[in-house]
């Protein structure tokens, strides 16, 4: 099959996704999760409709303009596509504050040029002037916080994270796309217990969800487990302890897995303390192996699959470093 991208013809093998075909032929296409979640690779079809299953998760206005996800699209006929409608997707935002919270985590406060209507726990894509795109979860709550808050983990070879840590300054601007994702607080059943489990900067969406739930008058217990390898990774320890002191139905359990005599991995500690999860809503944030295993465990322990919320996606920067 022929794949025309930005006016140039490439070949696309049977069963190959549009993204894989372009990368194989050295096209510098943006991508991250390759799983239909992050929307980083979004493109637009010039004529004809892309397969419907490559448009899931894309908002209606973009879908009707033929936007689709090349990472999910295995064309059955020739396809003519181009980069997305930039003005429709991206809006400008300005850094208000960048503050280091721990040796490897910084807090970034962003002010969007036009208000962003989001739910706590969703994520946005940041696009730097050179076109590099990365996804970050929102830690802020629209009803409580004036600006957008992100927690950035510095990765050894992470281009965006190192730039945010060392180069970006208050007053600089970049572009954002979003909000994206299904991992957010659902105000139905305010009496149901919530189990929030996150590792590293996976805490960002969880603190947003917890504060959103508390502000929405959630009456059920809210249990938040934050896992890190070392104690210094508990970057919101004081904030969370204060939140625990202020709300009788909120508990915070820090879990340190990499030091002897400490508590162990967050998901293991959480499941040991809550052996029956019937009626719970469970939120999981972290890397796919943890999220996928914890999703299965939570289901087997009685949670409804529909009540387990997670946006597992692989960080592109992370893949550049060895995992183990």
């Amino acid at each position, binding site marked *: 099959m022929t794949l025309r991208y930005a006016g140039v013809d490439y070949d696309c093998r049977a069963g190959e996704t549009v993204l894989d075909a372009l990368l194989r032929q050295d096209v510098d296409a943006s991508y991250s999760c390759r799983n239909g979640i992050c929307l980083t690779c979004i493109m637009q079809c010039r004529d004809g409709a892309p397969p419907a299953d490559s448009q899931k998760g894309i908002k209606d206005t973009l879908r009707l303009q033929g936007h689709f996800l090349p990472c999910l699209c295995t064309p059955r006929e020739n396809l003519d596509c181009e980069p997305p409608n930039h003005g429709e997707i991206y809006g400008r935002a300005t850094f208000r504050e960048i503050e280091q919270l721990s040796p490897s985590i910084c807090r970034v406060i962003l002010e969007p040029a036009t208000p962003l209507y989001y739910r706590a726990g969703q994520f946005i894509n940041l696009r730097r002037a050179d076109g590099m795109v990365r996804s970050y979860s929102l830690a802020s709550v629209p009803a409580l916080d004036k600006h957008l808050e992100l927690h950035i983990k510095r990765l050894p070879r992470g281009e965006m994270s190192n730039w945010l840590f060392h180069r970006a300054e208050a007053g600089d601007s970049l572009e954002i796309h979003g909000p994206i994702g299904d991992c957010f607080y659902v105000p139905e059943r305010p009496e149901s217990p919530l189990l929030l489990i996150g590792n590293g900067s996976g805490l960002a969406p969880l603190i947003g969800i917890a504060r959103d739930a508390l502000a929405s008058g959630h009456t059920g217990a809210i249990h938040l487990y934050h896992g890190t390898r070392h104690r210094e990774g508990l970057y919101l320890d004081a904030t969370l302890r204060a939140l625990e002191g202020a709300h009788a139905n909120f508990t915070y359990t820090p879990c340190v897995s990499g030091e002897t005599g400490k508590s162990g991995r967050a998901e293991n500690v959480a499941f040991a303390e809550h052996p029956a999860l019937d009626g719970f809503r469970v939120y999981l944030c972290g890397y796919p192996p943890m999220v996928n295993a914890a*999703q*299965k465990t939570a*289901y*087997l322990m009685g949670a*409804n*699959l529909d009540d387990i919320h997670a946006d597992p996606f692989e960080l592109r920067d992370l893949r550049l470093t060895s995992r183990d």
Partner: protein
Amino acid sequence: MSQSLFENIGGQPAVDAAVDLFYRKVLNDDRVSHYFDDADMDDQRAKQKSFLTMVFGGPNDYTGESLRDAHKDLVDDGLNDSHFDVVAVHLQNTLDELGVPANLVNQVMALAAGTRDDILNR
């Protein structure tokens, strides 16, 4: 006129009651759970639902061909009669736990048995 199997067994609510019981039994069984490791759980649960709807005699869009395609890679990976039997026992236990009368269980199990060759790609 006798009612259909699907009506007798309780229709869609019976499927809804059975699907989590059944899927959890299968996932908890080390003899077969590894065949589900790479599957998206939401997709997989939806497939279990349509499979149960079919073997309960209800409206479904399963065909022999779709069952073959869905299991082809697993058969290449060693899926055989012993695994089919394990899952069949979980189905029977699910129905027993839900209090489905024995004559209806037998009809369901007969419909399930009829999928064996398609699932095992024979």
